[in-house]
């Protein structure tokens, strides 16, 4: 039964992946109107822009107005990717070496703190509280727990089973939580980017969002 946590994790992962696949299927089974209008620019460049330069904080007024929130989000997501890598390394019993372990644990700690900060910031701001669902608190809490367990596991403070247990809970919850935005993010940003590129919004020097007068 030593492998029980791993088995539970693998089942949970399968549930998560199935959930993601269902979301992708549901999304792509919806009608989509192709745009036959003659382009004023490039759809592909627009998509590229949306996933690169368009993501830079100073390119968005919303990000430049909320630098702390935006940077918190970036660290949170970096932590999640570090956690996923740590989980894969553990499942496949691959030793990443001391340096990688140290880097991963630091990133996961930062990610966990960013997750806790997300909960605090949401709870502290009246308008954010007003638009929140229970899931908005549960999701970052579960991710923070997963990252903490992962970091502690990498530092050999706790057993693998705790890390797998936290990962399993997260995986089982994932298809029903806002974590599923990971599916929609790529479609939505790609779609908006392609539209901006198609309509020639990238042909002109970009609008000035810096000198706010409103």
């Amino acid at each position, binding site marked *: 039964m030593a492998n029980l946590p791993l088995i539970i994790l693998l089942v949970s992962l399968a549930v998560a992946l199935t959930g993601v696949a269902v979301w992708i299927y*549901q*999304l792509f089974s*919806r*009608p*989509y109107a*192709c*745009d*036959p*209008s*003659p382009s*004023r620019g490039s759809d592909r460049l627009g998509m590229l822009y*949306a996933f690169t330069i368009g*993501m830079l904080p100073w390119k*968005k*007024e*919303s*990000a430049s107005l*909320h630098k702390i*929130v*935006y940077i918190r*989000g970036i660290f949170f997501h970096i932590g999640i990717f570090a956690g996923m890598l740590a989980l894969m390394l553990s499942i496949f019993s691959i030793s990443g070496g001391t340096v990688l372990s140290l880097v991963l644990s630091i990133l996961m700690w930062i990610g966990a703190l960013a997750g806790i900060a997300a909960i605090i910031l949401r709870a502290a701001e*009246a*308008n*954010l*509280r*007003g*638009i*929140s*669902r*229970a*899931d908005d608190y*549960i999701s970052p809490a579960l991710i923070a727990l997963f990252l903490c367990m992962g970091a502690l596991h990498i530092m050999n403070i706790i057993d693998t089973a705790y890390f797998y247990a936290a990962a399993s809970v997260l995986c089982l919850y994932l298809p*029903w*939580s*806002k974590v*599923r*935005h990971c*599916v*929609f*993010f790529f*479609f*939505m940003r*790609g*779609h*908006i*980017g392609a539209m901006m590129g198609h*309509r*020639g*919004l990238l*042909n*002109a*020097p970009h*609008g*000035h*969002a*810096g*000198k*706010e*007068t*409103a």
Partner: protein
Amino acid sequence: MLDRQLTREVAAALDGCVRCGLCAESCHYYAAQPQLQNMPVYRGEAVRRFFHKAGGRARGLFQWPVKTKPGDTASLDSLAEMAFGKCTLCRRCTVNCPVGVDTAALMRSARSIATAAGKAPEILVQLADAAISRGESMDLFRDMLLDRIKELEEETRTRINDPTFSIPVGKKGAEMLFVGLSGEHSIVPPAILFHYAGANWTLSLFEASNYGTFLGDSERSKKIALRIINEARELGVKEVVIGECGHAYTTLRWEAPKWFKEALPFRVRSLIEVLADWIQNGRLVLNPGANPDPVTYHDSCNLGRNGGLLEEPRIVLRAAVKDFREMYPNKEESYCCGGGSGMAAVQEWQERRMQAGLPKARQIRATGAKIVVASCDNCRIQLGELNEHYNLGIAVTGLADIVVNAALKN
């Protein structure tokens, strides 16, 4: 009906929002009044709840938001009120969303649902239906229109002191079909510029406005657009040039090909693009000294952020005026004036429009400009009212008017 509204974009926007709230300040309603109800995410949530309650979507585990009563925003009445009266579909929140949630697409689908349920503002429905009737019985209007065009020709010949000036209508073999708005102000200045540039053009019998778009009603929109498409086909023109109207340009240039599932058999351009081209290739010669007062430009959301015409109006203005000043933020980050997407047509929302236009009024005041150019009739109406409401001390004018002031006859 609900299922038809659930396109891939709408489905993604329904399920992809993480409710980070970063979109708040990007909305001119919120910038004017920082309240929960003015956050784009709040409106998006209302549409989400409506779809969930109506059974259009698989439910998530936790759907309830705090501070909203069950059934309040989910009811059709409040959904319609929100979609038509609390959002101008300007897409500024979409451009500023880190995830790319197209809240404007959600609100447009809410408008479609409200229109289908008979909950759309009556004036918008009437304007759309009037345009369709006009297309179906043009013979009743043609003679009246032609008589008025003759009078305009005479008046303009005297105004510009040129007996050769004409406004051709229904001219076969013309290269360009110009579609103005309902109003002489949208026909005479472009006609003068076409005359100066020696264009081979003809005037459309119809107006460019498409209120079906505001209603989110693709059937009405298609009927209204088809009037112009059929006219252009019959005349065999190479291109259709849309007058100074934001939504009319976006509708025919970008949306109509999607509805008809094919590219239109002619080129579609805005008057702004044509003028920018002519100025750049020397076909239209301007004297900026004729417009010495400081001028600023308001980016219509439909022409700019949604239409892609960001640089062209600036090319025109830099050539036509002596002192051009930018508002900040501008171009794709420009604030909506508050009158877009049919808001300007609904009189009972005047106070709300003035409130929502506060960020724009502040922007205008900060430029110190005496003249505000807007290349969209809805924006011009709204900016004119903002001028009075906030005592801005400005004149609001169209791009073609400014260019006519500066144009020298070749």
